[in-house]
């Protein structure tokens, strides 16, 4: 039987992969996808806690509600973010993050 | 309608009219004239027998926190309000023809006036502070836009320095507030007095030091004086008059009202020697810095810093004589330094320079200006007949009494240097007068026009109360005496 630890481990690995993607990839789209992956990892751990963190014998449904909040926020963020990326591409003709350094000292 | 609220609102309403397009000079002068008449009426209608706060009115703002707009006046406030109204009207009269943005110029002057009147009329400490802040930015504009010489640097330095000092002051005031017991917290001065009198409320020493540094910097206490001389030298005459004459006195007023009232004797006596050392710096050190100046605007600017030392001496004496002398000297100095800056501006307007080497013999071409400047010179030198002498002599007696009572050597040194300061001020003022007005006249100054009637009356308006208080100091002393005992 998978225990809480297993799910948390999976969530952690997912989060780490996503973090690695945010830190190390050069393309903005990929960074964005990694960001989504981190959010999913958080969702996974929340669902796991909901299933295993029992309160009075019942599941803790607060965590599942929070998952919906996160999904909504992620969707909104993707919409805004992609719009920003598109206009950024139009302005700078590049999606490489290293090329975006006008606000440097 | 509270008369004090009227005094504050009139300049603000006049500013609105000016912003809407009315004739700037006439509107401003009208508002200032009404303010002056109101201040005079209030001054004489104060009931001396009853004493205490009168003309009080109150509006709730944040009652739970103890922040309310409370306006009221007692003897000391009314004296300061009279000073403010006199100098405002006089400053507006002396203002020259402004080419660029005349409206903003007069609005700035009116805002300074409203701020300072509000500060003197407030019984609520937070509003006292707030009204003073109202006067800070207009000063920046006046110096920076219409000033002369290195005006931008002077404007920045003065504003940031004073802003920092105000911030320190705010910390001190809030700390004072927080040191009150939680159920009796209020910014109302009257409640603070009650608390000090009836309970054993004793705020900490660091708060006292913060208040002294905060208020002291606003008054150009040594060593926090570097903003003053450049600011006054670069400022246009009306701004310098209002700032040196009135706005500076706010710091002293705050010290008398707040810092000197609520702290226990041990703290004030422990800090006093340091205060005395600082004021010796004001009188002795700044006095000689003034002697080294070669231009009139710098001389008058530094001299106003020096004279603050005398007022501090009166406060440091911590007895009735000293504090009354300090209050009288505040009134006297406000008028005399305002007159000095007015005439300074007149000279600068005519000759374009205030350098002693370039001027000389002006008494031939501008005799009335010379005569008026002679009066102002004699006033700031502490000649009897002007209120400055009365204030100074009371301060000396108060300081002597304090020395007698406590026997600390530093007070004796302060008294000796203070009396010597009278010689120092004679040195630089007489040198200024001799170098500007006496001696042979250079050809290029032969055809200057003498001082115009409006400017003449403006300076006379300042000199007359100065001489009245000089001949009959009780006129002011009986007002401030109700407060300071």
């Amino acid at each position, binding site marked *: 039987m998978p225990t809480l630890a297993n799910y948390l481990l999976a969530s952690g690995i997912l989060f780490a992969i996503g*973090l690695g993607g*945010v*830190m190390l990839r050069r393309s903005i789209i990929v960074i964005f996808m990694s960001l989504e992956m981190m959010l999913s990892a958080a969702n996974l751990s929340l669902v796991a806690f909901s299933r295993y963190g029992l309160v009075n014998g019942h599941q803790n449904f607060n965590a599942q509600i929070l998952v919906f909040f996160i999904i909504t926020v992620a969707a909104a963020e993707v919409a805004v973010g992609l719009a920003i990326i598109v206009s950024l591409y139009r302005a700078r003709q590049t999606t490489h*993050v290293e090329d*975006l*350094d*006008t*606000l*440097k*000292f | 309608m509270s008369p004090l609220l009227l005094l504050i609102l009139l300049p603000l309403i006049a500013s609105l009219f000016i912003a809407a397009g009315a004739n700037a000079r006439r509107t401003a002068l009208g508002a200032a004239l009404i303010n002056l008449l109101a201040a005079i009426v209030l001054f004489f209608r104060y009931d001396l027998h009853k004493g205490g706060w009168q003309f009080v009115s109150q509006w709730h703002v944040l009652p739970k926190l103890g922040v309310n707009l409370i306006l009221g006046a007692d003897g000391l406030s009314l004296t300061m309000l009279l000073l403010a109204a006199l100098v405002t009207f006089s400053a507006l009269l002396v203002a020259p023809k402004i080419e660029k943005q005349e409206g903003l110029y007069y609005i700035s002057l009116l805002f300074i006036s409203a701020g300072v009147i509000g500060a003197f009329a407030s019984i609520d400490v937070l509003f006292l502070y707030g009204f003073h802040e109202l006067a800070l930015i207009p000063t920046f504009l006046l110096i920076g836009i219409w000033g002369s010489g290195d005006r931008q640097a002077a404007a920045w*330095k003065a504003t*940031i320095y004073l802003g920092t000092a105000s911030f320190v002051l705010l910390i001190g005031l809030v700390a004072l507030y927080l040191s009150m017991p939680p159920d009796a917290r209020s910014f109302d001065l009257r409640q603070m007095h009650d608390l000090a009198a009836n309970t054993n409320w004793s705020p900490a020493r660091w708060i006292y030091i913060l208040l002294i540094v905060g208020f002291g910097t606003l008054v150009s206490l040594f*060593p926090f004086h*570097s*903003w003053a001389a450049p600011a006054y030298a670069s400022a246009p005459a009306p701004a310098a008059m209002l700032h040196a004459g009135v706005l500076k006195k706010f710091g002293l007023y705050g010290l008398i009202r707040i810092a000197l009232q609520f702290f226990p004797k041990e703290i004030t006596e422990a800090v006093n020697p340091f205060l005395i050392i600082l004021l010796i710096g004001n009188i002795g*050190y*700044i006095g*000689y*810095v003034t*002697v*080294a*100046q070669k231009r009139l605007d710098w001389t008058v600017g530094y001299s106003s810093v020096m004279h603050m030392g005398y007022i501090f001496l009166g406060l440091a004496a911590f*007895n*009735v*004589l000293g504090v*009354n002398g300090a209050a009288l000297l505040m009134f006297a100095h406000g008028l005399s330094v305002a007159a000095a800056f007015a005439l300074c501006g007149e000279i600068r307007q005519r000759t374009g320079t205030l350098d002693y080497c370039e001027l000389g*013999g002006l008494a*031939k071409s501008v005799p009335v200006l010379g005569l008026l400047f002679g009066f102002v010179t*004699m006033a700031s030198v502490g*000649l*009897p*007949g002007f209120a400055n*002498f*009365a204030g100074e*002599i*009371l301060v*000396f*007696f108060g300081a*002597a009494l304090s*020395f007698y009572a406590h026997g600390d050597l530093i007070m004796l040194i302060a*008294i*000796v240097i203070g*009396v*010597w300061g*009278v*010689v120092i001020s*004679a*040195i630089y003022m*007489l*040198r200024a007068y*001799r170098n500007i*007005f*006496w*001696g*042979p006249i250079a050809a290029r100054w032969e055809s200057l026009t003498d001082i115009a009637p409006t400017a003449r009356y403006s300076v006379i308006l300042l000199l007359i109360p100065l001489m009245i208080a000089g001949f*009959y*100091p*009780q006129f002011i*002393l009986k007002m401030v*005496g109700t407060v300071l005992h």
Partner: protein
Amino acid sequence: MNISMIAWITLLVPLIAAALIVLVTRTSKPLASGLAILSALVAFVGAWTLFIAKTHGDFLGFNWINVAIDLDHHFTIPLGLLIDPLSRTMLVIVATIAPLVFIYSLGYMKEEEGYWRYFAGLALFLFSMLGIVLADNLVMMFIFWELVGVSSYILIGHYFRKNSAADAAKQAFLVNRIGDFGFMLGILFIWLATGDISFASLNPEAGALQGQPVMLAIGVVLIFCGTVGKSAQFPLHVWLPNSMEGPTPVSSLLHAATMVAAGVYLLARIFPLLAASPQASEIVLWIGAITALGAGFLAIGQDDIKGILAYSTISQLGYMVAGAGLAVSAALPMFHLFTHAFFKCLLFLSAGSVILGMHHEQDIWKMGGLKNKMPLTFLAYLAGMLALSGCPGLSGSFSKDLIMAHAWADHRAIFWVLVVGAALTPFYMARQASVVFLGSPRSDHAKHAHESPMVMVLPLLLLAIPSIAAGWGFVKNIFFPEALGSLEEAGHLPWFVEWIFISAFVVGIALAFAIYRNPAKDPLRIPLLANRFYIDAFYDWAVATIQGGFARLCSFIDRWFINGILVQGSATAIWFLGFCLRFLQVGNIQAYAFFFGAGVIALIYVLLTVH
């Protein structure tokens, strides 16, 4: 009209006149001078009324300052008039000489400009001087002391277009202020020690002064500083010769007869304290004697007709101060003040007559033979000169010899100093008389000189009368009643003391006439004397170097240290902090993300581990 009202009118009318002259009469010469002379005459009548009525009292005007210290005690500085024998006599001196000088000014200043300024200044001076005389407490006297100083400033600076006059006025005010520094400290000291500042209650045994000779001496010496300044004693004497830049009537009234005598009057007022302090009296005595002798020497080396008289005044003031220092009675110095006022004023006014006749030439070596051109002036001058030199029978000899007689009795060293001075006086006066009036004219101005108008000569002749008679017994008794102190001889004097005085007079005059018999230029040229013992040069150097240097040092510290390092420095430090922090903006989004993440982890760590 009661007596106190007369006293107040006497005091205040000149002030009102001065104010009116300034406000109203700037364009009308006769009105200006008329108002001034009228006020002087009112003061004259008032003063003599008070004198004849033998008024005695302390008339309170009002409490100028009245501060409640607590429920029972008030701190007051009253303005009141103290009329006693001392002030009555001094009042008569001031109020008699003033109208004469004012009327003389009508002639002297007729062609001058700044007429209204001159008469306003004179009226203000009269008010201030009367205030000093009538003051009933130390602070009130200090107030009028300062006012007299500013009148002097205005009047010395009358010809302010000249650099020398402008500088002289400034110097007079400043040097007096230095004396006033000591005076003010003395007032505070006496107040702290005795709790009282009024003259009537001066008591050497009061309060903390009791049994404390050092304290008493300090208090008296501090107040004496005021005298050193105002009465031009060494070392604050340098302003008086330079004050001759003012018009001659001013020199006669202020800087000979009355204002400079105010210092001596102050000593007379605080006489109870002075007499009770041997240390202080000793200091006063020596300063007076040194001044008397030193100034006598310097008078020999002067070539300006007013300069000789100026140093003579300083010297005679030295006699008065020494007389006060002998601590015999208040009347001793006052007697010499009394006689000196008349003959010195006379001498200055006759010098003014000469100057006017010489078209404002003041160098005695351009004069000569004026006795024939200006006979009346010469007669008046002669009376004054003989009185000053101590000619037996004239006023000056009585007062000066009395001081020296007391010096013989009490303090032999001082006696010899004063006697040498007494020999110098006839010498320089006869020198002046010989060079100016005798012999033959040395320049065109002298050849064409003529007598001055009657409006100037009449005051001269009138002043000659008291110059001759003011020392005589019956006059002395009227003006110096017993109440003022004893003016009797000091015990038994050996017979030769009197002869020492007479021979000093004779030898001085004879020597001068012998040397200065119609010379073309000065046969006795001593640079040390002509350069005023180099004291003036030393002071100029000291002010420029020491004071100027210290001021520049302070200015330097203020500009570079306090302003530069502390203020600009703190501003620069903040700027530098900002500059350093700027480098965190690397421009790389991922770096920012990294910082953000690291910060979050650190925050979580802190929150979890810190309690």
